[in-house]
């Protein structure tokens, strides 16, 4: 009996040792599980915070205020100009008003910064997707004619400076490095790729015709007769650029951008 007791005790001790080992292993697994849970929770929180930073839903009623440091001459000029705006009158009553105000903004932050702001203004932000507002330019022109849209007027005044092909080319050359660096390929593919390709394709389609003028005549006729201005806008765009003599420069620039991002 005693011998049996001794043997059984020894076996029990061995079994205990094995159990201890198994319990230790289980603890390690528990630690890893809770670590994974923690990481998932923190990724969730980061995701939510990114989404809410991007989401514009609440932002539309937010109050933004950014002061511009004006010297005395500008202070008087800008405010005199703005009196037209406040009174609901056209800026044309003043002397080059929109350009003066745009100059004041550029002096504060620089041209690049204003271009970046316009870039940001062209996007729609929601908490799940950011997209390009393809009607942005047309809305700009239409609403800029109304007396009360200050931002649109100022952006138009700024953009109008670059209808001159030489200025446009210079601005592009000076600033392209910054924007190529800012906009990643993913963002380009998401926001701009399709839009820019539409321009490139329509240009190519126009110019594969021998008689470009006839092609345009046809397009304009169809647009007016069938009231399809919107559909043919990508074609009439190039006609307007041809009249401004900057169509070739713009095509080259768009091509360069497209090439840069499809490498």
């Amino acid at each position: 009996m005693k011998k049996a007791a001794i043997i059984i005790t020894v076996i029990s001790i061995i079994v205990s040792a094995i159990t201890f080992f198994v319990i230790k292993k289980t603890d390690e697994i528990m630690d890893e599980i809770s670590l994974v849970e923690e990481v998932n929770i923190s990724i969730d929180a980061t995701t939510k915070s990114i989404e809410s930073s991007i989401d514009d839903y609440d932002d539309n009623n937010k109050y933004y205020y950014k002061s511009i440091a004006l010297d005395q001459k500008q202070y008087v000029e800008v405010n005199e100009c703005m009196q037209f705006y406040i009174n609901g009158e056209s800026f044309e009553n003043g002397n080059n008003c929109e350009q003066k105000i745009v100059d004041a903004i550029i002096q504060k932050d620089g041209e690049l910064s204003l271009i970046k702001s316009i870039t940001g203004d062209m996007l729609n932000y929601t908490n799940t997707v950011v997209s390009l507002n393809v009607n942005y330019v047309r809305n700009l022109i239409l609403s800029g004619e109304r007396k009360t849209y200050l931002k649109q007027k100022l952006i138009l005044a700024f953009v109008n400076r670059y209808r001159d092909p030489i200025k446009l080319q210079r601005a592009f050359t000076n600033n392209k490095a910054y924007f190529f660096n800012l906009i990643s390929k993913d963002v380009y593919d998401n926001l701009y790729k399709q839009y820019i390709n539409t321009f490139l394709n329509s240009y190519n389609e126009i110019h594969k015709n021998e008689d470009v003028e006839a092609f345009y005549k046809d397009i304009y006729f169809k647009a007016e007769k069938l009231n399809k201005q919107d559909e043919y806008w990508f074609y009439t765009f190039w006609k307007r650029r041809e009249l401004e003599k900057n169509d070739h420069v713009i095509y080259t620039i768009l091509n360069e951008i497209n090439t840069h991002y499809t490498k």
Partner: protein
Amino acid sequence: MKDKIPGLLLIGSLLLTFFAIYLWLITEEYDSISVEVKMLVSASFLSLLGLITVHYFQNKGYLNYGVINLFVLLFSIAFLTGASFLLFASYNTYTKRLKTLKTSGSLENVILSNSGFNTEDAQIYIDLKESRNRLLGYETFLKETAQNYAPSDYSYANVIKNELINQLSNKAGTQTYWDEILNSVYVFDTINNTYKRGGYEIMYVFGNDVYPNEDLKNTTDMDFIRQKSVLEYWQAQLLDADRTPENIASFWRDNKAFFYTFFSKSQYDRLCKLVVDDLITIKGKINEQPNYQEFYENYNISDPIFLTFPDKAFVKSYKYSWPFSFWDRRYEEGNDSVIYKILVEIQKHYQN
């Protein structure tokens, strides 16, 4: 007796082990060994020790009862049963947890965000949105400034003045802050490279006039605008200051380095020494009067009797009555001893 020692030792250690195990089992340690492990270790120890004890005593001829052996056997069987049961249970738990780990993902394959954005793209979008917001901010600024614009009653110089005052208050607690204030108060003359106001002339800077929100009209002299702005700011600070002794003590402690940096010994001697020395001497003389508190409580500078304290000749020996009324006012505020201490410290600092 000597041969009983090992036996006694064994029994003693057995009892001690019982006691230790009892304590160990009942203490709840934070982040510790689980109860099962404790039980297994205890059982192992006990059974080993028990076996050795029983075996020893049986060899000596005691405890040679069948019952004892039966008991020992039963105990070992119980131990084996318990240990096997625990092994079975913990192995079950282990496999279950392993399955959870496999499904929830080990650290190698944690799932990244399932929103549409990866973090780099998100940063770009946030950056662009902030740029857009800046544009909206300019729009608000332009509209609001234009609405407040009234060239006939409020001039650009005043706009600058308000801006300077804002900037000044943002710089509080720096050397530049103090340099700007002290330069304006002591009126630094850039032409002669000297300070125009020293000694008691400093009293003319503020006096009793409160600077209202003074309209600077159409002046374009930036130096003038700057000085007016600083003085208006500092006047407001003096009026609003917390004059309790504790606040004055900590204010001095936090800012005295700037004061000592601004005033070299020669500047101090030229601009401040006279006033500081006078204040200290006068206060010293007043403190010698046994009833000065009562006097201060009853009279102030507007009473004719005030300037006969501590005595007429002494008061007359000073050009200005200001330091006398100074100590009365400080007594009213309750900070006269703190200020006296600070003045003495300043005097000592510049004596070396």
